[in-house]
């Protein structure tokens, strides 16, 4: 009567389904384009302003304004990414989770052999893969900008600075995961986006105040501003955020009822 079940690979099926949805969606595509292009344009604008002697921009950058070459470019990009990237990652996650409630498709995800917890984990895994892709893409774009600006010749030794960028992007993506939990509990996109804004504000305020090196949601922003001020072990605390909130998210999906 029924089609045979493939008992193994239910998580694999969830990942494949979520990957397909993400690939087909304009939301993920435009988030990627806006994030990468936006950061690239902003970095170029800041460099141009510094070169033109714009005092306000130079004051905002602080010691970074005097740093040229790859270190200066990467320093600007990581600072923009710590805030702007987190916003983009939070929006993407809020959409991935919140849209099931906003579109009403969550009802169709019940009564299936693929458990809802696997669907939630599938979303997070696809998000992580996408974030790594964004990290690679952004690093490539920034490398291109640096080469166009001639840093390949004038600052060949500083090329290694670029390695900070993908690490910062991935760390930023990791601290965005609470948005998924908030979108699940709040049953929509807005609670996820509001949570993201909250994380950005707290992380930036604490980073500017130079406190919170050991607070996982602050460490990436602090590292972006002043890499030497953060012990490497502090960055290792960052994965605790996705682990804790990813677990909460899977639990919320497993125990979910359509009672609202």
């Amino acid at each position, binding site marked *: *009567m*029924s*089609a*045979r*079940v*493939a*008992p193994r690979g*239910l998580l694999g*099926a*969830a990942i*494949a*389904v979520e990957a*397909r*949805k993400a690939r*087909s*969606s*304009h939301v993920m595509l435009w988030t990627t384009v806006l994030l990468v292009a936006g950061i690239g344009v902003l970095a170029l604008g800041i460099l141009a302003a510094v070169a033109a002697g714009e005092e306000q921009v130079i004051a905002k950058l602080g010691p970074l304004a005097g740093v040229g070459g790859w270190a200066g470019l990467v320093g600007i990009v990581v600072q923009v990414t710590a805030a702007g990237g987190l916003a983009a990652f939070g929006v993407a996650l809020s959409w991935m989770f919140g849209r099931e409630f906003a*579109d*009403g*498709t*969550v*009802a*169709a*995800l*019940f*009564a*299936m*052999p*693929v*458990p809802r917890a696997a669907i939630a984990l599938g979303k997070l895994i696809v998000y992580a893969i996408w974030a790594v892709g964004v990290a690679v893409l952004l690093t490539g774009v920034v490398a291109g900008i640096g080469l166009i600006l001639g840093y390949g010749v004038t600052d060949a030794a500083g090329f290694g600075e670029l390695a900070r960028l993908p690490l910062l992007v991935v760390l930023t993506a990791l601290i965005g995961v609470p948005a998924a939990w908030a979108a699940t509990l709040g049953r929509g996109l807005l609670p996820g986006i509001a949570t993201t804004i909250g994380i950005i504000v707290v992380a930036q305020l604490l980073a500017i105040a130079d406190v919170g090196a050991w607070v996982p949601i602050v460490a990436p922003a602090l590292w972006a501003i002043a890499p030497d001020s953060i012990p490497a072990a502090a960055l290792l605390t960052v994965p605790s955020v996705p682990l804790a909130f990813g677990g909460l998210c899977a639990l919320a999906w497993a125990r979910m*009822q*359509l*009672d609202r």
Partner: protein
Amino acid sequence: MKNPAGTTPMRLEGGGLVRRFRGGAGLRGIDLSVAAGEIHAIVGLNGAGKTTLMRVLLGMLRPDAGEVRLDGVELRSADAATWARVGQVVEQPLAYAELTARGNLEIAARLHGVERRRVDELVDHAIEEFDLGRYAPVRTSRLSLGNRQRVGLAAALLHEPAVIVLDEPTNALDPAGVILLRESLLRRAAAGAGILVSSHHLDEVARVADRITVINDGRAIGPLDPHGIDLERAFFDLVLGDDAARAEAAQGGTARGGTARNHTRRSAP
């Protein structure tokens, strides 16, 4: 549709189902079953509890009391193999706007536990069965509501489930879609599926159902004969009779100093 013991197996059983909501709505103790090969329809006015009942039967809501069995397996113990024998559309169908009709059917197959190598075969069959060929490469966001419903129904049924639960499945369907669905359900019932379907369309229900149960105020208040002459009159007789009995009981309760809920009085159209 007998099993080796000579009895008809039950595809879906709910016993003593209670689920209360704030404000007084919910289920107040429903027993309901669907046998293999049977199409059991539930009818009732808006707010009677049909969708809540279906949600409880499918694990979308946990009951305050009572038990659900899916193809003989207690719902709380249902594993992947049990859920792979279930197909449902309650409220929104599985039809993601960003995917094509075919894309939606392919992900539905994966989520229903279909082995990857069988996905194309089952999707092709579903496209043919629900006459979706023209729409297969079209993004679902561009489909009409009725065609989106067809995609959702095809997604729910493509894995040939033994337990089928459909809430108002003819909503938004055009007459051709209604006929396709009717034939599809009759074919699946003949093959041994147990089908629970809710509808407001008594004529349509009479065409497909082996049994009709009337739901009112969160309870199963009685059967309707699918072959009866005036189904609408029989339906309202049952509902209005139940409303009157409850109102009378509530007044008696109030007279005895008890608290009584308010009931909306209805009259036959």
